[in-house]
């Protein structure tokens, strides 16, 4: 068989399977009818407009944005010093620390959410909101540490030593030499953390309640009751948002170098 032809057939089929469903979702969202269907019954933008009018979507979008932005920032505040120490100092028990910090990746999210609810929120009487925030922070922490460590490893230690010799304090050297040089890594960690948190479902499952839901959880709840194309429209918008963020990041900082 012609190998060029078979190459394109294989890739065509793979891409149809991987990306085709999105095209179908976008088409279904453009429907003028009231039921989710493909091919769509007539064309209109009404479901894209409806998305912005659903009160619960607006509220849960706010919650998800807050968690993704501030959860990632909190994870960076914890993660950057840890990454700095692990790449610059001989930390006693470094392997154990690494394992502890990366444990949120190993433990499935639903278990984390349940454990936090049952043995943290309920006994302490804390609110679900703070717990949800802490859970997202913990979830992003491993990514923050890993990505930032990688870019610190690429930064030569002599530059800091030179700054110290020239009279900088430790902190001054960190602020003036290290931080500016790992800007790309920080941004990459932020984007990775943001997307991870925003798309996360299992961790939030048990840590949600009426009035406090993340957007993906709200979408699942909505589609259990309604069979209209608004979730399709919302899915399409979210897909464009994440793909747009990642593309911009790739273009400006070369995200894939860091991840």
């Amino acid at each position, binding site marked *: 068989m012609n190998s060029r032809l078979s190459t394109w057939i294989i890739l065509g089929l*793979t891409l149809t399977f991987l990306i085709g469903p999105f095209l179908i979702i976008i088409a279904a969202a453009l429907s003028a009818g009231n039921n989710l269907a493909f091919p769509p019954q007539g064309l209109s933008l009404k479901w894209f407009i409806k998305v912005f009018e659903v009160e619960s979507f607006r509220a849960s979008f706010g919650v998800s944005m807050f968690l993704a932005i501030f959860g990632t920032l909190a994870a960076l505040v914890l993660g950057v010093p840890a990454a700095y120490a692990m790449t610059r100092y001989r930390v006693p028990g470094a392997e154990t620390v690494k394992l502890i910090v990366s444990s949120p990746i190993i433990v499935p999210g639903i278990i984390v959410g349940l454990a*936090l609810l049952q043995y943290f929120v309920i006994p302490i009487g804390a609110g679900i909101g703070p717990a949800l925030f802490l*859970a997202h922070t913990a979830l992003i*922490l491993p990514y923050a540490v890993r990505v930032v460590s990688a870019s610190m490893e690429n930064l030569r230690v002599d530059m800091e030593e030179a700054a110290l010799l020239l009279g900088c304090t430790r902190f001054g050297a960190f602020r003036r030499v290290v931080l500016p040089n790992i800007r790309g890594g920080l941004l990459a960690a932020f984007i990775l953390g943001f997307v991870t948190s925003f798309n996360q479902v299992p961790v939030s499952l048990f840590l949600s309640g009426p009035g406090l839901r993340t957007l993906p959880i709200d979408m699942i709840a909505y589609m259990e009751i309604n069979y209209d194309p608004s979730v399709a429209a919302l899915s399409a918008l979210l897909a464009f948002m994440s793909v747009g963020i990642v593309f911009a990041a790739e273009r400006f900082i070369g995200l894939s170098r860091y991840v």
Partner: protein
Amino acid sequence: MFENRAIGLALVLPAAIFAAALFLLPVGILLSEAFRTDTGWSVSAYGEFFASSRNQTVFFRTLKLASLVAGVSAVVGYAAAFAIVNLPASSRGRMFGLVTLPLMISPVARTYAWLVILGRTGFVNKFLVDLGITDTPLRILFTETAVFIGLLQLFLPLMIISLVSAMENMPRDAVPAARILGANWLQVFWRVILPLTREGLVIGGTLVFTGSMTAYITPAILGGSKVLMLETLLYQRVTVANDFVSASVIAMILITMSFSANLLLKRLATARKSR
């Protein structure tokens, strides 16, 4: 490398304490739940969990679907990765980007698409009825097939990424050399490509297998309560029956799986570094 250990430790501690207090402690208590009884410690909860035929079904279904997804994604992944690696350099990066694109999109959106495609009034059924292949729409949603398709679409990109990076490290002339020496494509695959990309296959396979085992959204939306997997069973046991003992057993199974997968990957990574 700076020598002061105290500073290093002080910088690491906040992150370590945070993760330990919020993660290890609550999760540890949850795991211990299955071992605690009124009279002391015991492992009987595990026996009881596996004595139930429903739990057995869910456990083996989860293993079966995860293995199936890993196996099929390996077959498809090899074909796709080989095709990508052999593209001209200009289109290779673009194709790789397209294949990894779905990874950035919310799994809810990715799973939701299959409702439109596989539902009773969905695209596939309309097609089948119009062609006269079937008179009444088939029930595809809420079957293992639907969950399998959803998981495959979710995790196939991970397999392709692993295999592409393994193939890029393969000596450039290995395949043409084998062809010139008279090997057919099956022999080329078994004796050249497979041994040279074994590591990528293990990495991809582990990611896909553990990912499918611990998936929640796909079985929840495409399987519902008819096709429970371990995570959806856990959710149901807790919300419907307040059954923390079963939840604890399931948590142990999932964590053991994902921890051993992680160890395996770490060992592979260090083996590669020392080479």
